[in-house]
């Protein structure tokens, strides 16, 4: 494989970034949009070429030695294999679509060039993350996308609430990143390499390596994943991240960046397979996240918040699959989720655009006439995420639930996953009914201006809706192209593909009925009875707890943020002074003497310099004279 090709793939978005930073303002909005989009499209085209011509064997490109540790060198290198190509496909593919969409969506923003610059930079780091040949290269991309996320959440920086959200995202991610780093350290000291290909062979042949340390490494790396992929307990930044412009929510906080944790675990599948206890933890954390986030999504009224919690919940399902060792299933859901969740976010963006910034579903309603394309595409995506046959989400979610069901005799994970899925169907259709059906609840002014979005917005929606419809085809039970494609990555023989026996049909039936029940309840409540969620002040009981997200933010605030700030005050105001007194060795008496002494000398520098010189002379003299007496 041509090294230059890979470099172009990586650097095209970076050049787009440089262009937009340095020339963007002068070049004008149209040029900014075109250059920004094309630079990602170039990467997409190269990815397609790589995809078509890739060999079975992974290709490693080492550019130079980057950091040296005593026992090993860490190279600046890339790894192109099935996994990276797969991720590149949807990162650059969906990335191109969302860039295209943003040309129209951000056109009225005076800082459009910065927006495209950051978005290009994000794609650059995301590519770096995906094609890094070792853990530390991955870490460059990992922190880089975190940076872009920070910059884009706080894009409208005049609003300090948005800046708070951006900061929160960065810091919570960094908690996870510390886990990632610790994992890297342990992996490095256990196996003397951070290189993915050598790690795999080393681990397979390793004999005397302590299981405990492998488990600790796996756990630490998983903590890293919980930060980036918004899992319990580090998920609270993602809903706040909705402060960013909607294309950002679609690209970074739904389709690509938040899947980095899943990418990492899949990349290191050979390591996690050796730590079954950690895999159990991953499965449980995933299932719990799926359920907790789904319950919160039930009552949210901000259209983007619903989608955000939905994302957290779906990521939870993916981790559930990872914990069960079904990496290919998790990857399958990553891909289908990227299609329908990007579509949903972009659709919500179209709605928000149409309503001039309104995000509260209580003030929407009846939009399906005015925005037919947005409505239909979002409806398809909602059906897909709800898991209705034969849309993409049906197949991928079904695979996860089947895996959970077959995994052991304990059906708890399957039950939790299924409940979360039923809830998904409910809250998605709650969103659809509240937004598009019945009569419009906004102002007359808004009503007057209702319109379908321009084609730069609707075309990406249509493409994503089609993908949400047919995307399941890449991994049909019994005929899974995806599983075959990914097979070389996994050390364990890929899970026997589910042959469609009676159990499987029954599970599918249960899942479908569950989804229909969820949709049915939403239909009854929000379409038939035309219920409008109550005003914030009137929410009571369990809904209030859910509406306030179980008060997790408040709990974190009082357990971590406030104490550390109090500690800071304490240190700054008291400890510093005491330390100063302590170290100076000035008790009360000596302090007094010092003050008197200072008065006497009037703080004269000359005196101290003099003392210093005298001291040196005395010592030199002593040394000199000493020669004669020894």
């Amino acid at each position, binding site marked *: 494989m041509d090294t230059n090709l890979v470099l172009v793939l990586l650097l095209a978005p970076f050049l787009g970034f440089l262009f937009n930073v340095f020339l963007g303002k002068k070049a004008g909005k149209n040029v900014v949009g075109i250059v920004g989009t094309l630079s990602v499209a170039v990467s997409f085209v190269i990815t397609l070429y790589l995809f078509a011509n890739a060999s079975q064997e992974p290709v490693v490109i080492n550019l130079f030695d980057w*950091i*040296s*540790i005593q026992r090993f060198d860490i190279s600046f290198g890339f790894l192109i294999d099935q996994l990276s190509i797969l991720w590149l496909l949807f990162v650059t593919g969906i990335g191109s679509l969302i860039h295209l969409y943003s040309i129209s969506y951000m056109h009225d923003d005076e800082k459009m060039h910065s927006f495209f610059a950051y978005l290009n930079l994000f794609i650059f780091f995301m590519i770096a993350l995906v094609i890094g040949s070792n853990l530390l290269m991955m870490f460059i991309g990992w922190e880089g996308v975190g940076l872009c996320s920070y910059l884009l959440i706080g894009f409208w*920086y*005049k609003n300090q609430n948005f*800046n708070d959200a951006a900061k929160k995202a960065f810091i919570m991610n960094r908690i996870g*990143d510390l886990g990632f780093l610790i994992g890297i350290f342990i992996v490095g000291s256990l196996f003397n390499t951070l290189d993915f290909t050598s790690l795999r062979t080393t681990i397979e042949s390793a004999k005397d390596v302590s299981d405990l340390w492998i488990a600790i490494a796996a756990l630490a790396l998983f903590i890293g994943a919980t930060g980036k992929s918004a899992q319990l307990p580090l998920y609270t930044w993602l809903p706040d991240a909705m402060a960013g412009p909607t294309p950002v929510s679609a690209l970074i906080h739904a389709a690509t960046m938040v899947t980095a944790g899943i990418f990492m675990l899949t990349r290191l599948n050979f390591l996690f397979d050796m730590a079954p206890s950690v895999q159990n933890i991953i499965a449980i954390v995933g299932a719990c996240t799926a359920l907790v986030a789904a319950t919160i999504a039930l009552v949210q009224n901000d259209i983007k918040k619903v989608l955000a919690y939905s994302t957290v919940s779906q990521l939870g399902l993916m981790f559930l699959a990872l914990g069960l060792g079904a990496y290919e299933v998790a990857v399958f859901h990553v891909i289908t989720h990227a299609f329908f969740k990007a579509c949903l976010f972009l659709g919500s963006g179209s709605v928000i655009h149409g309503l001039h910034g309104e995000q509260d579903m209580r003030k929407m309603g009846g939009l399906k006439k005015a925005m037919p394309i947005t409505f239909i595409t979002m409806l398809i995506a909602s059906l897909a995420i709800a898991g209705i046959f034969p849309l993409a989400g049906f197949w991928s979610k079904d695979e996860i639930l089947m895996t959970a069901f077959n995994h052991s005799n304990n059906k708890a994970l399957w039950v939790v996953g299924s409940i979360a899925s039923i809830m998904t169907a409910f809250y998605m259709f709650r969103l659809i009914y509240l937004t598009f059906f019945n009569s419009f609840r906004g102002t007359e002014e808004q009503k007057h201006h209702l319109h379908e979005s321009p084609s730069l917005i609707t075309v990406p929606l249509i493409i994503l809706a089609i993908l949400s419809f047919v995307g399941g085809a890449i991994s049909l039970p019994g005929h899974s192209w995806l599983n075959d494609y990914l097979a070389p990555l996994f050390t364990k023989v890929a899970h026997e593909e589910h042959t469609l026996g009676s159990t499987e049909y029954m599970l599918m039936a249960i899942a479908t009925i569950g989804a229909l029940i969820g949709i049915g309840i939403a239909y009854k409540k929000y379409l038939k009875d035309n219920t409008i969620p109550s005003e914030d002040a009137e929410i009571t009981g369990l809904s209030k707890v859910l509406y306030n997200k179980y008060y997790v933010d408040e709990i974190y605030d009082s357990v971590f943020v406030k104490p550390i700030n109090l500690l800071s005050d304490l240190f700054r105001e008291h400890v510093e002074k005491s*330390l100063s007194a302590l170290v100076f060795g000035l008790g009360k008496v000596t302090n007094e003497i010092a003050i008197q002494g200072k008065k006497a000398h009037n703080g004269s520098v000359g005196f101290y310099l003099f003392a210093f010189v005298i001291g040196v002379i005395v010592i030199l003299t002593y040394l000199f004279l000493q020669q004669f007496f020894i």
Partner: protein
Amino acid sequence: MDVTTLLIILLLGAFATYFSGDKWAPKVALLFSLTAFAGAICLLSQYNLGNEISYSKLWIAKPKIYFALQADGLALAMVLLTTALTPIIIFSSFGNTYKNSKAFYALIVFMSFAMSGTFLASDGLLYYIFWELSLIPIYFIALIWGNGDAEERKKAVVKFFIYTLAGSLFMLIAFVYLFQKAGSFLISDLTALNLSSSEQFWIFMAFFLAYAIKIPLIPFHTWQAKVYQKAPTVGTMLLAGIMLKMGLYSVIRWQLPIAPLAAKEYMYVFIGLGIAGVIYGSIVALKQKDLKKLLAYSSMAHVGLIAAGAYTLTLDGLRGAVLQMIAHGFVVVGLFFVAEIIFRRYETRKIAEMGGIRAQSPKFTSMFMILVLASVALPSTFNFVGEFTVLYSLSQVNVWFAILGGTTIILGAYYMLKMFQHIMLGETNAKLFADVTFNEGLALVVVIAVLFFFGLYPKPIMELITPSLENILTQINRFN
């Protein structure tokens, strides 16, 4: 050409600056400091070619004191840091005017001379003289050209002076004791001594006092914040960028090889002290109201981590420490310059009086942001290379050290981003903020370029310092 040439350039530069008069002094100082940097580069190429650039001559016959300057890779790296930062620091001050500027700039160049001498000296007494000599210019710079209330400033600066001087005296005593044993002050003789472990302990502690105050390590840091705040920004840059590295460098060069048994025996204590500084400094930084004081505590946190790395007594720890020393030198100079740029426009260092600058100054914002990111060790910046290596070395000693020391990546992000938010973001400030001038931008761009270049390609520095550090490790392990 050998290293004495470099020192002569700097010393001459100091005099030439003084005699060139107030008008020309800044330019002459810049010229000589740039020449010194060029000289350091020449020395580097000579060194890489394998030519002898060290210098040693008997200075005083009785007692035997040598004028010995030893330029190995480690010393060269530090000299390069010093001579690279000095012109940047001088150049960054071009937007300000100082009364009696000939003395001001002469002292800066003189300080560069003394610090370079400290890094190069391989005779204990010569080293001690350079070490103390470097204190004098910074003392005057802070006292005369500093800001804020004169009385308060005097108090802070005098405290600093006495404090560091007192610490150093213990070092001198240790040297005298060592001289009695070895018959010379030469480092090669001192590291060949067969000291008992209790002797090593006392010597280690005497050195420790001098270095812990200079670096500064908790709880010896209490002079730092006030002095950083009161000194003119140029002085703060000299202190934080270069001078505190003298302490860290001396740990590696003198303390560890001379008293390795004590270093091993109490390794956990000193690593712990370094890490305590990381956490404490970060937490105190969080609520600082004065920008320069915030940066002072941030600096304290960073050097705590560097010291912890050095005290691991491993190649990774030492190498990470040196890399991080250099990286920190650049980033901290950049950040203090940012504080100065803001001060030039708003005449305040109180964070509460800033805010909403971003909308008015895109260039300044980007450069400030990059420096913040480098400071929190974003991968691909030089600081990440150093921090990663140090944290890795800590994890090899005990994984808890890496976890506790690693809190710097969380806490650092917290206080730095909070600071950035309060200074730069929010509604546009009513007070006009002009974007960086060409000169200001140039200084920042140079710093940023260095941070990215070595962040992606630290190999040249690693190759420069590794052989010297391996020698030092051999000396450290000679009792095994």
